[in-house]
């Protein structure tokens, strides 16, 4: 498995549509056998990137390599890459068997029949081999699309929003199944999605894309815990971003002034250059304490909060807390039954650990990457 001969490498990949720069000088390496996710909102260039890797669009500039082979301008049918298309693109006039066998037959594989039946069994569609795609449910169609691509044993499997058309429960199931299949066959998966939970559940590495460039790349945990841009902080999960002034660095901590109150951030989590910065902290990392209580949980404390909204969501209780400077911060408390519950209007202080906060450059838009209702597909 340590063989790196079939890594997918993308070098300086650029795509223009007229004046619109869809993908801007993209460079990345996807190690063989890894599960890689390209995550970003609509129009960020992730699907265009995928299509250039598949050979469906020609890049304006740059190269695509698989191992040492340059496939940039190879026709789609000449490259060891297969795609699971958005909404599947199953051939409506062919049966499930014919759909799955399509690639093998084009390549003149002799025993395609047995292999096709095996693959249909693997994706658990045995009884449906003779049906047409229109006669299957969404989840079944999804599995046909997967089987139809995987049977060709590609060096890289591209998945374009493969679960987008499924309902939530089925999507969760398929996420686990996809991950299981990927681990089993050890094929490189490149997965394009706008769903951050989906990306984090499945991928080893996530590249967050925005406006044609990669904002940040890394393991899901690293991206979530230590985002480097406001876009990543907001697009992956939710963040409280507070305007602060950087005062000093003491030992391993950066000390910042937050509307008159001093709090610290671990230096390795500071990505701000100038005097001003965004102090970020995830809502579930913040604890609410009754005003004036002796604070034990975190060493960073902001006082003077007042509860303006309480939402009970089962596993947790979510508070909106108005701070003295007018901003409302989100606080998610686990329903462990061991911590006090607050009501609207209660005065409280909020605390967190310096190891859980991050500092971002003040030049960025604090609302970049925030999901608005219109984005929620």
């Amino acid at each position, binding site marked *: 498995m340590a063989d790196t001969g079939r890594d997918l490498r993308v070098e300086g990949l650029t795509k223009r549509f007229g004046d619109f720069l869809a993908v801007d000088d993209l460079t990345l390496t996807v190690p063989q056998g890894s599960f890689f996710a390209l995550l970003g909102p609509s129009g960020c260039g992730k699907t265009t990137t995928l299509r250039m890797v*598949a*050979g*469906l669009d020609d890049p304006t500039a740059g190269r695509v390599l698989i191992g040492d082979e340059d496939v940039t301008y190879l*026709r*789609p*049918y000449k490259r060891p*890459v*297969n*795609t699971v*298309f*958005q*909404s599947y*693109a*199953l*051939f*409506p*006039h062919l*049966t499930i068997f014919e759909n799955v066998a*399509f*690639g093998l037959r*084009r*390549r003149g594989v002799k025993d395609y029949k047995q292999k096709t039946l095996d693959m249909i069994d693997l994706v658990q569609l045995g009884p449906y081999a*003779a*049906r*047409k795609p*229109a*006669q299957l449910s969404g989840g079944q169609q999804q599995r046909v699309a997967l089987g*139809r*691509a995987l049977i*060709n044993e590609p060096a890289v499997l591209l998945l374009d929003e493969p679960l987008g058309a499924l309902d939530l429960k089925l999507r969760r199931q398929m996420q686990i199944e996809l991950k299981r299949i990927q681990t089993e066959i050890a094929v490189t998966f490149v997965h394009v999605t706008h769903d951050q939970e989906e990306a984090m559940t499945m991928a080893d590495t996530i590249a967050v894309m925005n406006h044609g460039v990669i904002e940040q790349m890394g393991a899901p945990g690293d991206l979530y815990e230590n985002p480097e841009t406001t876009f990543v902080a907001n697009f992956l999960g939710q963040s409280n971003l507070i305007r602060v002034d950087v005062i000093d660095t003491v030992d391993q901590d950066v000390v910042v002034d937050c509307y008159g109150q001093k709090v610290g951030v671990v230096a390795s989590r500071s990505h701000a250059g100038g005097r001003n910065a965004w102090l970020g902290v995830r809502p579930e990392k913040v604890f609410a304490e009754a005003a004036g209580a002796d604070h034990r949980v975190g060493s960073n404390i902001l006082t003077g909060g007042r509860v303006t909204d309480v939402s009970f969501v089962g596993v947790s209780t979510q508070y909106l807390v108005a701070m003295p400077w007018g901003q409302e911060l989100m606080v998610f408390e686990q329903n462990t039954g061991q911590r006090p519950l607050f009501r609207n209007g209660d005065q409280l202080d909020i605390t967190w650990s310096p190891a859980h906060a991050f500092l971002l450059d003040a030049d960025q838009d604090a609302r970049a990457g925030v999901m608005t209702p219109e984005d929620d597909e």
Partner: protein
Amino acid sequence: MATVATRERVSSDPGRAKPSKRPVGRWLSDHLVLLVGILVLVYIFVPIGYIFALSFNQPSGRSATAQFESFTWSNWTSICEPEGLCDSLQLSFEVSITATLLATLLGTLMAFALVRHSFRGRSTSNLVIFLPMATPEVVMGSSLLAMFVSVGLDSVLGFVTIVIAHVLFCLSFVVVTVKARLVGMDSRLEQAAMDLYANEWQTFRLVTLPLAMPGIVAAAMLSFSLSFDDFIVTNFTSGQSVTFPLYVYGSKLRDFPAQLFVVGTLMFLVSFVFVIAAELWRRRRSAIR
């Protein structure tokens, strides 16, 4: 949740206890459109019924356009008896089949070019394709005749010139019909085929063509019916040749053989069976095998 469910059940009880009758007015307004539709269908079928009835008529005089007189099978057993009738049918079939094949081939190619390829002059091409449809047949026929005469083709007016004219007016309809089908087709299917190791030709043969087929077949059927039934353009371009519509028109001026009604009935029955069969075949193809 439990309380909500109970409340729903309670509130639905009175409705179940006393089922309300659907008022007649409501039924009428629900079915009014269907009734009107059926009346229009009846209107469409009046002459068909008339043709069907007269195909069994034994006319007393020489012309058969009058009222029903007495029943006979003889018209059905002597279709070819009136002079030239079957010759005209044969010519019509030859013309329509040739024109349909040519128009379908040329029109399908054009539709592919317009939908799948970008090039300069697309909108001009679209206009040139649309214009024949906006040209009244009498104009098209007369201009073609004028051209055939001017280039000295007036001595050979007949099969070739009729086919030329028929392809011309079928072509635009083919392009429009096939284009509609191609535009509605998801090009991702072709990309998927290419992704699965089908080269351009295989993609066309295995994916594009089968998917475009319903449109192409519809276009061919439309062409055939337009061509077979055409009188106006044919009248200008046929010279001495007589197609079936020309024969019918000519008979109107002389005696009207009752066998024409037999042919009319047969045309209806054959097309009816053909269209039904085509649909059954389509359904079987898409059913579970």
